[in-house]
Protein backbone atom coordinates (compact mmCIF):
# COMPACT_ATOMS: atom_id res chain seq x y z
CA UNK A 1 0.00 0.00 0.00
CA UNK A 2 1.32 3.38 -1.02
CA UNK A 3 1.11 6.71 0.79
CA UNK A 4 -1.78 9.06 0.13
CA UNK A 5 -1.74 10.85 -3.19
CA UNK A 6 -1.88 14.48 -4.13
CA UNK A 7 -5.37 15.56 -5.06
CA UNK A 8 -6.03 15.17 -8.78
CA UNK A 9 -6.13 18.63 -10.40
CA UNK A 10 -9.47 18.51 -12.18
CA UNK A 11 -8.92 21.98 -13.61
CA UNK A 12 -5.82 20.70 -15.38
CA UNK A 13 -7.48 17.49 -16.54
CA UNK A 14 -10.14 17.62 -19.28
CA UNK A 15 -13.68 18.01 -17.94
CA UNK A 16 -16.21 15.30 -18.73
CA UNK A 17 -18.50 17.49 -20.83
CA UNK A 18 -16.66 18.90 -23.86
CA UNK A 19 -19.32 19.43 -26.56
CA UNK A 20 -16.90 19.99 -29.43
CA UNK A 21 -15.95 16.36 -28.89
CA UNK A 22 -19.47 15.17 -29.58
CA UNK A 23 -19.25 11.71 -28.05
CA UNK A 24 -18.76 13.32 -24.65
CA UNK A 25 -22.17 15.00 -24.72
CA UNK A 26 -24.21 12.02 -23.55
CA UNK A 27 -21.34 10.11 -21.93
CA UNK A 28 -20.55 12.74 -19.28
CA UNK A 29 -22.16 12.72 -15.84
CA UNK A 30 -24.42 15.69 -15.10
CA UNK A 31 -23.72 15.54 -11.39
CA UNK A 32 -20.48 16.43 -9.65
CA UNK A 33 -18.28 13.53 -8.56
CA UNK A 34 -18.13 12.66 -4.88
CA UNK A 35 -14.67 13.48 -3.53
CA UNK A 36 -13.35 10.64 -1.44
CA UNK A 37 -10.64 10.54 1.18
CA UNK A 38 -8.44 7.66 0.23
CA UNK A 39 -8.56 4.18 1.68
CA UNK A 40 -6.76 0.95 0.88
CA UNK A 41 -9.15 0.52 -2.04
CA UNK A 42 -7.61 3.54 -3.77
CA UNK A 43 -4.02 3.16 -2.52
CA UNK A 44 -3.35 -0.39 -3.63
CA UNK A 45 -3.14 -1.66 -7.21
CA UNK A 46 -2.43 -4.85 -9.16
CA UNK A 47 1.17 -5.87 -9.83
CA UNK A 48 2.37 -7.47 -13.03
CA UNK A 49 5.59 -9.36 -13.54
CA UNK A 50 7.74 -10.88 -16.24
CA UNK A 51 5.84 -14.13 -15.79
CA UNK A 52 3.07 -12.63 -17.93
CA UNK A 53 4.86 -9.88 -19.93
CA UNK A 54 7.27 -11.13 -22.61
CA UNK A 55 10.22 -9.13 -24.04
CA UNK A 56 8.73 -9.29 -27.56
CA UNK A 57 5.55 -7.60 -26.29
CA UNK A 58 7.18 -4.13 -26.55
CA UNK A 59 8.34 -4.59 -30.15
CA UNK A 60 5.40 -3.75 -32.41
CA UNK A 61 7.60 -4.20 -35.47
CA UNK A 62 8.03 -7.89 -34.62
CA UNK A 63 5.21 -8.94 -32.32
CA UNK A 64 2.70 -9.51 -35.13
CA UNK A 65 5.05 -9.99 -38.09
CA UNK A 66 3.86 -12.86 -40.33
CA UNK A 67 5.67 -12.56 -43.66
CA UNK A 68 8.08 -9.67 -43.01
CA UNK A 69 8.30 -6.26 -41.39
CA UNK A 70 5.33 -3.88 -41.34
CA UNK A 71 5.32 -0.91 -43.74
CA UNK A 72 6.00 2.54 -42.32
CA UNK A 73 8.35 4.81 -40.46
CA UNK A 74 10.36 2.86 -37.91
CA UNK A 75 10.37 4.63 -34.56
CA UNK A 76 11.41 4.13 -30.97
CA UNK A 77 9.24 5.65 -28.25
CA UNK A 78 10.99 5.86 -24.92
CA UNK A 79 10.74 7.83 -21.72
CA UNK A 80 10.18 7.52 -18.02
CA UNK A 81 7.20 7.01 -15.79
CA UNK A 82 7.51 9.54 -12.97
CA UNK A 83 5.26 10.86 -10.24
CA UNK A 84 4.55 14.53 -9.51
CA UNK A 85 7.50 14.56 -7.12
CA UNK A 86 9.76 13.58 -10.02
CA UNK A 87 10.39 10.15 -8.52
CA UNK A 88 10.54 7.18 -10.89
CA UNK A 89 7.66 4.72 -10.93
CA UNK A 90 9.45 1.36 -11.29
CA UNK A 91 8.13 -2.00 -12.50
CA UNK A 92 4.78 -0.64 -13.60
CA UNK A 93 2.78 -1.76 -16.60
CA UNK A 94 2.64 0.48 -19.68
CA UNK A 95 0.35 -0.65 -22.50
CA UNK A 96 0.03 0.98 -25.93
CA UNK A 97 -2.18 0.64 -28.98
CA UNK A 98 -2.28 2.47 -32.27
CA UNK A 99 -3.27 2.50 -35.92
CA UNK A 100 -0.88 1.40 -38.66
CA UNK A 101 1.04 3.74 -40.98
CA UNK A 102 -2.11 4.40 -43.00
CA UNK A 103 -4.30 5.25 -40.01
CA UNK A 104 -6.14 1.92 -39.98
CA UNK A 105 -6.73 -0.04 -36.78
CA UNK A 106 -6.75 -3.81 -36.59
CA UNK A 107 -10.21 -3.83 -35.06
CA UNK A 108 -13.34 -5.47 -36.39
CA UNK A 109 -15.24 -2.19 -35.96
CA UNK A 110 -12.81 -0.03 -37.98
CA UNK A 111 -14.14 0.39 -41.54
CA UNK A 112 -11.75 3.08 -42.79
CA UNK A 113 -10.62 2.05 -46.28
CA UNK A 114 -6.89 2.45 -45.66
CA UNK A 115 -5.68 -1.18 -45.71
CA UNK A 116 -4.73 -3.41 -42.82
CA UNK A 117 -1.02 -4.19 -42.69
CA UNK A 118 -0.69 -7.98 -42.55
CA UNK A 119 2.43 -7.68 -40.42
CA UNK A 120 1.22 -5.12 -37.91
CA UNK A 121 -1.00 -5.78 -34.90
CA UNK A 122 -0.74 -2.37 -33.25
CA UNK A 123 -0.53 -3.18 -29.58
CA UNK A 124 2.32 -3.57 -27.14
CA UNK A 125 3.13 -3.58 -23.46
CA UNK A 126 6.18 -3.29 -21.24
CA UNK A 127 7.13 -2.98 -17.58
CA UNK A 128 9.10 0.10 -16.59
CA UNK A 129 12.55 -0.71 -15.21
CA UNK A 130 13.93 0.10 -11.75
CA UNK A 131 14.41 3.77 -12.78
CA UNK A 132 10.97 4.04 -14.35
CA UNK A 133 12.27 3.84 -17.92
CA UNK A 134 10.26 2.21 -20.68
CA UNK A 135 10.75 1.72 -24.42
CA UNK A 136 8.76 0.55 -27.43
CA UNK A 137 9.70 -0.01 -31.03
CA UNK A 138 6.94 0.53 -33.53
CA UNK A 139 5.74 2.12 -36.79
CA UNK A 140 4.69 5.76 -36.69
CA UNK A 141 0.88 5.74 -36.95
CA UNK A 142 -0.96 7.70 -39.62
CA UNK A 143 -3.69 10.28 -39.14
CA UNK A 144 -7.24 9.08 -39.72
CA UNK A 145 -10.71 10.59 -40.10
CA UNK A 146 -13.37 10.24 -37.43
CA UNK A 147 -17.03 11.14 -37.36
CA UNK A 148 -17.14 14.26 -35.25
CA UNK A 149 -17.40 17.23 -37.57
CA UNK A 150 -17.72 16.35 -41.26
CA UNK A 151 -14.01 16.79 -41.79
CA UNK A 152 -12.40 15.78 -38.48
CA UNK A 153 -9.01 14.06 -38.50
CA UNK A 154 -7.12 12.69 -35.55
CA UNK A 155 -3.45 13.65 -35.46
CA UNK A 156 -1.03 10.73 -35.43
CA UNK A 157 -1.17 9.31 -31.92
CA UNK A 158 -0.41 6.33 -29.73
CA UNK A 159 -2.82 5.43 -26.94
CA UNK A 160 -1.02 4.80 -23.65
CA UNK A 161 -2.33 3.13 -20.49
CA UNK A 162 -0.36 3.25 -17.22
CA UNK A 163 -0.91 1.78 -13.77
CA UNK A 164 1.33 2.92 -10.90
CA UNK A 165 1.31 1.53 -7.36
CA UNK A 166 -2.13 2.97 -6.47
CA UNK A 167 -5.34 2.28 -8.39
CA UNK A 168 -6.22 5.99 -8.06
CA UNK A 169 -3.20 6.75 -10.26
CA UNK A 170 -4.71 4.78 -13.14
CA UNK A 171 -4.38 6.79 -16.33
CA UNK A 172 -5.10 6.44 -20.03
CA UNK A 173 -3.86 9.12 -22.38
CA UNK A 174 -2.66 9.68 -25.94
CA UNK A 175 0.81 10.61 -27.14
CA UNK A 176 1.21 12.94 -30.13
CA UNK A 177 4.23 13.77 -32.28
CA UNK A 178 6.20 17.00 -32.35
CA UNK A 179 5.25 19.32 -35.19
CA UNK A 180 2.01 17.63 -36.25
CA UNK A 181 -0.23 20.42 -37.66
CA UNK A 182 -3.40 18.47 -36.80
CA UNK A 183 -2.76 18.79 -33.06
CA UNK A 184 -4.27 22.28 -32.58
CA UNK A 185 -7.29 21.30 -34.76
CA UNK A 186 -8.33 18.24 -32.77
CA UNK A 187 -11.49 18.40 -30.65
CA UNK A 188 -10.32 15.54 -28.43
CA UNK A 189 -7.05 17.31 -27.63
CA UNK A 190 -8.81 20.62 -27.15
CA UNK A 191 -10.96 19.01 -24.45
CA UNK A 192 -7.89 19.82 -22.32
CA UNK A 193 -8.25 23.42 -21.13
CA UNK A 194 -4.61 24.29 -20.44
CA UNK A 195 -2.12 24.56 -23.31
CA UNK A 196 0.69 23.45 -21.00
CA UNK A 197 -1.18 20.21 -20.35
CA UNK A 198 -1.57 19.72 -24.11
CA UNK A 199 2.14 20.35 -24.64
CA UNK A 200 2.80 17.58 -22.12
CA UNK A 201 1.20 15.08 -24.52
CA UNK A 202 3.48 15.88 -27.44
CA UNK A 203 6.54 13.64 -27.71
CA UNK A 204 9.74 15.37 -28.80
CA UNK A 205 11.95 14.08 -31.57
CA UNK A 206 14.98 12.69 -29.75
CA UNK A 207 17.99 12.43 -32.05
CA UNK A 208 20.14 11.30 -29.13
CA UNK A 209 18.32 7.97 -29.03
CA UNK A 210 17.84 7.59 -32.78
CA UNK A 211 19.62 4.54 -34.20
CA UNK A 212 21.54 5.84 -37.24
CA UNK A 213 20.42 4.37 -40.57
CA UNK A 214 17.74 2.38 -38.75
CA UNK A 215 15.10 3.98 -36.47
CA UNK A 216 14.02 7.48 -35.40
CA UNK A 217 13.33 8.09 -31.69
CA UNK A 218 10.76 10.13 -29.78
CA UNK A 219 10.87 10.79 -26.04
CA UNK A 220 7.70 10.81 -23.97
CA UNK A 221 7.68 11.05 -20.18
CA UNK A 222 4.52 10.10 -18.29
CA UNK A 223 3.67 11.72 -14.95
CA UNK A 224 1.38 9.99 -12.45
CA UNK A 225 -0.09 11.53 -9.32
CA UNK A 226 2.47 12.13 -6.58
CA UNK A 227 2.57 10.54 -3.16
CA UNK A 228 2.47 12.68 -0.08
CA UNK A 229 5.68 12.34 1.89
CA UNK A 230 4.08 12.30 5.30
CA UNK A 231 0.86 10.89 6.55
CA UNK A 232 -0.84 12.06 9.72
CA UNK A 233 -4.04 10.24 10.49
CA UNK A 234 -6.66 12.94 10.78
CA UNK A 235 -9.02 13.03 13.69
CA UNK A 236 -12.44 11.95 12.50
CA UNK A 237 -14.43 14.98 11.52
CA UNK A 238 -16.70 16.03 14.35
CA UNK A 239 -14.93 13.94 17.01
Amino acid at each position, binding site marked *: MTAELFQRDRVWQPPAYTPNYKSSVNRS*PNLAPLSLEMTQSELTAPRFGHD*VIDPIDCDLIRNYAKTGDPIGERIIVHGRVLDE*NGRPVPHTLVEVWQANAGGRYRHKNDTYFAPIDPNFGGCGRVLSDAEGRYMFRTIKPGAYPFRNWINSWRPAHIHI*SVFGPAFAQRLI*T*QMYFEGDPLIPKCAIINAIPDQRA*IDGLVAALDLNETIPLDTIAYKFDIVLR*GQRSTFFENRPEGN
Partner: protein
Amino acid sequence: MVQSLNYLKETASQTAGPYVHIGLAPGAAGFDIYRKELGHDIAGPNAKGERITVTGIVYDGIGAPIKDILIETWQANADGVYPGAGDVEEGFVGWGRAISDFDTGRFTFETVKPGRVMGRNGKLMAPHISLWLVARGINLGLSTRMYFSDEADANAEDQVLNLVGPPERRSTMIASRDGSTYTFDIRVQGDNETVFLDV
Protein backbone atom coordinates in the same frame (compact mmCIF):
# COMPACT_ATOMS: atom_id res chain seq x y z
CA MET B 1 7.99 36.49 -5.35
CA VAL B 2 8.19 33.09 -3.78
CA GLN B 3 10.11 29.94 -4.50
CA SER B 4 8.69 27.64 -7.15
CA LEU B 5 7.08 24.51 -5.75
CA ASN B 6 8.70 22.54 -8.57
CA TYR B 7 6.19 19.73 -8.73
CA LEU B 8 5.54 18.03 -12.01
CA LYS B 9 1.96 18.04 -13.25
CA GLU B 10 0.06 14.82 -13.84
CA THR B 11 -0.06 13.84 -17.52
CA ALA B 12 -3.39 14.94 -18.98
CA SER B 13 -5.92 12.19 -19.60
CA GLN B 14 -7.43 11.48 -23.00
CA THR B 15 -10.31 9.26 -24.02
CA ALA B 16 -9.47 5.59 -24.57
CA GLY B 17 -11.38 5.92 -27.86
CA PRO B 18 -13.46 3.33 -29.72
CA TYR B 19 -10.58 0.87 -30.27
CA VAL B 20 -9.43 0.48 -26.68
CA HIS B 21 -9.83 -3.29 -27.13
CA ILE B 22 -6.80 -3.45 -29.44
CA GLY B 23 -4.53 -2.48 -26.61
CA LEU B 24 -6.30 -3.85 -23.57
CA ALA B 25 -8.41 -6.72 -24.92
CA PRO B 26 -6.98 -7.66 -28.34
CA GLY B 27 -8.92 -10.92 -28.49
CA ALA B 28 -12.14 -8.91 -28.55
CA ALA B 29 -10.73 -6.66 -31.28
CA GLY B 30 -10.43 -9.78 -33.40
CA PHE B 31 -6.84 -10.98 -33.03
CA ASP B 32 -4.58 -12.80 -30.61
CA ILE B 33 -1.11 -11.48 -30.00
CA TYR B 34 0.00 -12.10 -26.42
CA ARG B 35 0.91 -15.34 -24.68
CA LYS B 36 -1.43 -14.26 -21.89
CA GLU B 37 -4.07 -11.56 -22.20
CA LEU B 38 -4.51 -9.74 -18.91
CA GLY B 39 -7.62 -9.27 -16.83
CA HIS B 40 -9.57 -12.45 -17.50
CA ASP B 41 -9.04 -14.21 -14.16
CA ILE B 42 -9.63 -12.04 -11.12
CA ALA B 43 -9.69 -14.56 -8.29
CA GLY B 44 -7.70 -17.56 -9.55
CA PRO B 45 -8.40 -21.20 -8.69
CA ASN B 46 -7.43 -21.10 -5.01
CA ALA B 47 -9.45 -18.14 -3.78
CA LYS B 48 -11.53 -18.58 -0.68
CA GLY B 49 -15.04 -17.23 -0.49
CA GLU B 50 -18.19 -17.31 -2.53
CA ARG B 51 -17.93 -17.48 -6.32
CA ILE B 52 -20.11 -14.82 -7.90
CA THR B 53 -20.98 -13.45 -11.32
CA VAL B 54 -21.41 -9.73 -11.89
CA THR B 55 -23.25 -8.48 -14.95
CA GLY B 56 -24.77 -5.26 -16.15
CA ILE B 57 -25.11 -2.65 -18.85
CA VAL B 58 -23.64 0.84 -18.92
CA TYR B 59 -26.14 3.37 -20.25
CA ASP B 60 -25.52 6.80 -21.74
CA GLY B 61 -27.57 9.96 -21.29
CA ILE B 62 -30.36 8.86 -23.65
CA GLY B 63 -30.61 5.41 -22.10
CA ALA B 64 -28.72 3.61 -24.85
CA PRO B 65 -26.22 0.88 -23.90
CA ILE B 66 -22.60 1.93 -24.26
CA LYS B 67 -21.31 -0.93 -26.39
CA ASP B 68 -17.65 0.03 -26.38
CA ILE B 69 -17.12 0.41 -22.63
CA LEU B 70 -14.12 -1.16 -20.89
CA ILE B 71 -14.38 -1.64 -17.14
CA GLU B 72 -11.50 -2.43 -14.83
CA THR B 73 -12.26 -3.99 -11.46
CA TRP B 74 -10.20 -3.95 -8.26
CA GLN B 75 -11.09 -5.75 -5.07
CA ALA B 76 -9.83 -7.43 -1.92
CA ASN B 77 -10.06 -11.18 -1.33
CA ALA B 78 -12.68 -12.82 0.87
CA ASP B 79 -10.67 -11.88 3.96
CA GLY B 80 -10.65 -8.21 2.97
CA VAL B 81 -6.96 -8.23 1.96
CA TYR B 82 -5.71 -6.52 -1.18
CA PRO B 83 -2.83 -8.05 -3.15
CA GLY B 84 0.23 -6.00 -2.24
CA ALA B 85 -1.17 -5.07 1.17
CA GLY B 86 -1.01 -8.53 2.71
CA ASP B 87 -0.99 -12.24 1.96
CA VAL B 88 -3.58 -13.45 -0.51
CA GLU B 89 -4.17 -16.84 -2.12
CA GLU B 90 -1.79 -17.99 -4.86
CA GLY B 91 -3.26 -16.76 -8.14
CA PHE B 92 -5.53 -14.12 -6.62
CA VAL B 93 -4.97 -10.99 -8.75
CA GLY B 94 -7.87 -8.90 -7.47
CA TRP B 95 -8.00 -7.03 -10.75
CA GLY B 96 -9.86 -7.67 -13.96
CA ARG B 97 -11.03 -6.21 -17.24
CA ALA B 98 -14.56 -6.58 -18.52
CA ILE B 99 -15.77 -5.30 -21.86
CA SER B 100 -19.29 -4.93 -23.08
CA ASP B 101 -20.67 -7.16 -25.81
CA PHE B 102 -20.48 -5.24 -29.11
CA ASP B 103 -24.13 -6.11 -29.93
CA THR B 104 -25.92 -5.94 -26.58
CA GLY B 105 -23.67 -3.80 -24.40
CA ARG B 106 -23.77 -6.35 -21.59
CA PHE B 107 -20.62 -6.90 -19.53
CA THR B 108 -19.98 -9.86 -17.24
CA PHE B 109 -17.17 -10.91 -14.95
CA GLU B 110 -16.59 -13.81 -12.57
CA THR B 111 -14.93 -13.35 -9.22
CA VAL B 112 -15.30 -14.03 -5.50
CA LYS B 113 -17.23 -11.80 -3.16
CA PRO B 114 -14.74 -9.54 -1.35
CA GLY B 115 -14.54 -9.25 2.42
CA ARG B 116 -14.69 -6.08 4.45
CA VAL B 117 -11.64 -3.82 4.27
CA MET B 118 -10.48 -1.43 6.98
CA GLY B 119 -11.31 2.13 5.97
CA ARG B 120 -10.35 5.40 7.59
CA ASN B 121 -10.42 6.08 11.29
CA GLY B 122 -10.44 2.39 12.14
CA LYS B 123 -13.87 1.72 10.65
CA LEU B 124 -14.58 -1.25 8.42
CA MET B 125 -15.98 -0.55 4.99
CA ALA B 126 -18.79 -2.64 3.53
CA PRO B 127 -17.70 -5.20 0.91
CA HIS B 128 -17.22 -3.48 -2.42
CA ILE B 129 -15.47 -3.68 -5.79
CA SER B 130 -13.83 -0.57 -7.23
CA LEU B 131 -14.68 0.04 -10.89
CA TRP B 132 -12.98 2.26 -13.45
CA LEU B 133 -14.73 2.95 -16.77
CA VAL B 134 -13.15 4.13 -19.99
CA ALA B 135 -14.59 4.48 -23.49
CA ARG B 136 -14.99 6.76 -26.45
CA GLY B 137 -16.53 10.04 -25.24
CA ILE B 138 -15.12 9.68 -21.71
CA ASN B 139 -12.21 12.12 -21.34
CA LEU B 140 -11.10 10.95 -17.89
CA GLY B 141 -11.82 7.46 -16.57
CA LEU B 142 -14.92 7.31 -14.36
CA SER B 143 -14.47 5.78 -10.90
CA THR B 144 -17.21 4.24 -8.83
CA ARG B 145 -17.77 1.42 -6.36
CA MET B 146 -20.10 -1.53 -6.50
CA TYR B 147 -21.65 -2.65 -3.20
CA PHE B 148 -23.85 -5.70 -2.56
CA SER B 149 -27.61 -5.72 -1.88
CA ASP B 150 -27.34 -8.57 0.65
CA GLU B 151 -24.96 -6.57 2.86
CA ALA B 152 -27.55 -4.12 4.12
CA ASP B 153 -26.15 -3.83 7.64
CA ALA B 154 -22.60 -3.23 6.46
CA ASN B 155 -23.80 -0.85 3.75
CA ALA B 156 -25.73 1.17 6.33
CA GLU B 157 -22.51 1.95 8.21
CA ASP B 158 -20.21 2.31 5.21
CA GLN B 159 -18.42 5.64 5.38
CA VAL B 160 -18.36 6.14 1.61
CA LEU B 161 -22.02 5.32 1.01
CA ASN B 162 -22.90 7.64 3.88
CA LEU B 163 -21.05 10.48 2.17
CA VAL B 164 -23.54 10.37 -0.70
CA GLY B 165 -25.75 13.34 0.05
CA PRO B 166 -29.26 12.27 -0.99
CA PRO B 167 -29.79 8.75 0.43
CA GLU B 168 -31.80 7.87 -2.69
CA ARG B 169 -28.60 8.03 -4.74
CA ARG B 170 -26.83 5.41 -2.62
CA SER B 171 -28.78 2.67 -4.35
CA THR B 172 -27.02 3.50 -7.63
CA MET B 173 -23.88 1.95 -6.12
CA ILE B 174 -25.56 -1.25 -4.89
CA ALA B 175 -25.79 -4.34 -7.10
CA SER B 176 -28.89 -6.50 -6.72
CA ARG B 177 -28.54 -10.20 -6.00
CA ASP B 178 -30.32 -13.07 -7.74
CA GLY B 179 -28.80 -16.45 -6.86
CA SER B 180 -25.04 -16.15 -7.28
CA THR B 181 -25.40 -13.31 -9.81
CA TYR B 182 -25.29 -9.63 -9.02
CA THR B 183 -26.69 -7.17 -11.54
CA PHE B 184 -25.07 -3.77 -11.61
CA ASP B 185 -26.28 -1.36 -14.26
CA ILE B 186 -24.44 1.93 -14.53
CA ARG B 187 -26.07 5.13 -15.75
CA VAL B 188 -23.44 7.61 -16.84
CA GLN B 189 -25.85 10.53 -17.17
CA GLY B 190 -29.42 11.52 -16.42
CA ASP B 191 -32.13 9.77 -14.41
CA ASN B 192 -30.72 7.61 -11.61
CA GLU B 193 -27.23 8.69 -12.56
CA THR B 194 -24.63 6.48 -10.88
CA VAL B 195 -22.52 8.14 -8.21
CA PHE B 196 -19.00 8.66 -9.56
CA LEU B 197 -16.05 9.27 -7.30
CA ASP B 198 -13.23 11.78 -7.37
CA VAL B 199 -10.69 9.49 -5.71
